[in-house]
């Protein structure tokens, strides 16, 4: 059984079907990609997988447990973290503080946690370690607001990693990044591979094809294609597209 499975998800908003029949499975230790054109239902699908929306039909299983309809908080506590298309950071806090706040031992402490965090050597070391993982080791004391866009995105991933997830969902991590930023983010994601199971929703095909172990293509609220990048590349239309030319 895969670490995460979704079976025959169906969701409608009023008269509109947004997810018709989605089945996905993500194996532990792998990087699975979800891609699709604008309006295909990627983010809605993501929101069902991470508990923000409850599907009308279908089931979501994580680590053997049925998590369909559980709250996002409950799902997060089970070891699923997510990043957002729109970033969620405490802008007035430093990079270190953003990560320190997200560590489970800090959250248990409550209101004075941030002040105390600096006095806890183990916690400081762990936060720095995570910042190092995402390439922000030198940026620990900078205010989040002052970081360039690409580094804010890396910091957001650091915050998600601070929860020590078994599975990390990244929603359009390259959104708004230039080619330099994308290359740096690709390096970061490559480093995370193997340390944590990753599911990346991405509009940028090139990015996913270079990183993912397997890819599901979503369109019209359905999975229209599935396979490894090598398998998907055998499609003659893919070969003739920009993507094929890169191969």
């Amino acid at each position, binding site marked *: 059984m895969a670490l995460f499975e979704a079976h025959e998800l169906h969701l409608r908003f009023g008269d509109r079907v947004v997810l018709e029949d989605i089945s996905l499975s993500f194996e532990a230790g792998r990087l699975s990609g979800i891609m699709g054109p604008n309006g295909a239902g990627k983010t809605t699908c993501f929101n069902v997988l991470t508990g923000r929306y409850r599907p009308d039909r279908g089931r979501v299983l994580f680590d053997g447990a049925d998590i369909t309809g559980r709250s996002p908080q409950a799902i997060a506590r089970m070891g699923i973290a997510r990043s957002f298309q729109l970033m969620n950071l405490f802008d007035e806090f430093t990079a270190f503080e953003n990560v320190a706040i997200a560590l489970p031992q800090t959250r248990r402490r409550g209101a004075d946690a941030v002040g105390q965090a600096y006095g806890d050597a183990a916690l400081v070391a762990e936060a720095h370690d995570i910042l190092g993982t995402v390439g922000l080791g030198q940026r620990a004391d900078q205010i989040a607001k002052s970081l360039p866009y690409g580094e804010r995105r890396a910091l957001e991933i650091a915050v998600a990693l601070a929860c020590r997830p078994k599975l990390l969902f990244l929603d359009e991590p390259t959104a708004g990044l230039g080619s330099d930023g994308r290359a740096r983010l690709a390096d970061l994601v490559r480093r995370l591979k193997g340390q944590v199971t990753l599911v990346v929703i991405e509009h940028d095909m090139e990015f996913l094809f270079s990183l993912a172990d397997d890819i599901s293509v979503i369109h019209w609220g359905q999975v*229209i294609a599935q396979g490894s990048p090598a398998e998907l590349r055998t499609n003659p*239309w893919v070969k003739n597209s920009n*993507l094929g030319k890169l191969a």
Partner: protein
Amino acid sequence: MSDAPLLAIEGVSKIYRRGLLNRTPAFQLDVDFRIDKPAIVGVMGPNGAGKTTLFEMIAGSNVPTRGRVMVAGHDMQRVRYGERDRLAIHYHQSYQVRRFSRTRPDFVMEPAGSSYPVVHLFDEPQFNTQDGYIGFMLDFFRRLRSERRLVFICLHPTAALHLELLREVCERFFFVGDGQVRPFADYGTITADPRVRNYLGALAV
């Protein structure tokens, strides 16, 4: 699924009149055909010819002025509103659009008797050669057909690519124009028709 044809459009006309007082028709579309077996069907025609009206009548979101649309043996206008997309689903570009004007309560109506749509109507899907999605879209149409579904792809060709796609994936065609929906057995016959050639203009080779 029953033995009934996947789709039977029986003596259907849709008439839009100029107004409540002026009853002269502003638009009329007459349709009558049936398709028994799974297929991928291409639909072409000028803007305003009635391609979307045809799709809406098949999906049950537009009420024919006369005649009836049967999907897998069900009269679409008698099926519960919320279950019509279990018979025929209308995808408008990337979104799935359905607006039903409800005139009768659901409890007097019939269930769809299907959990996954029988007829899939793709209304002007966006094909972009750059990103490679086309290949996955074409494979998806073929997969639906192999799962015994009926697939319609409606396009108003504006580039040679569009015709190339229709030729590659569709096995039969309809041309919507002058208030009629005319059937064609294959790509060769539709592109040989003078009316269609006139419509395609420079794209007709």
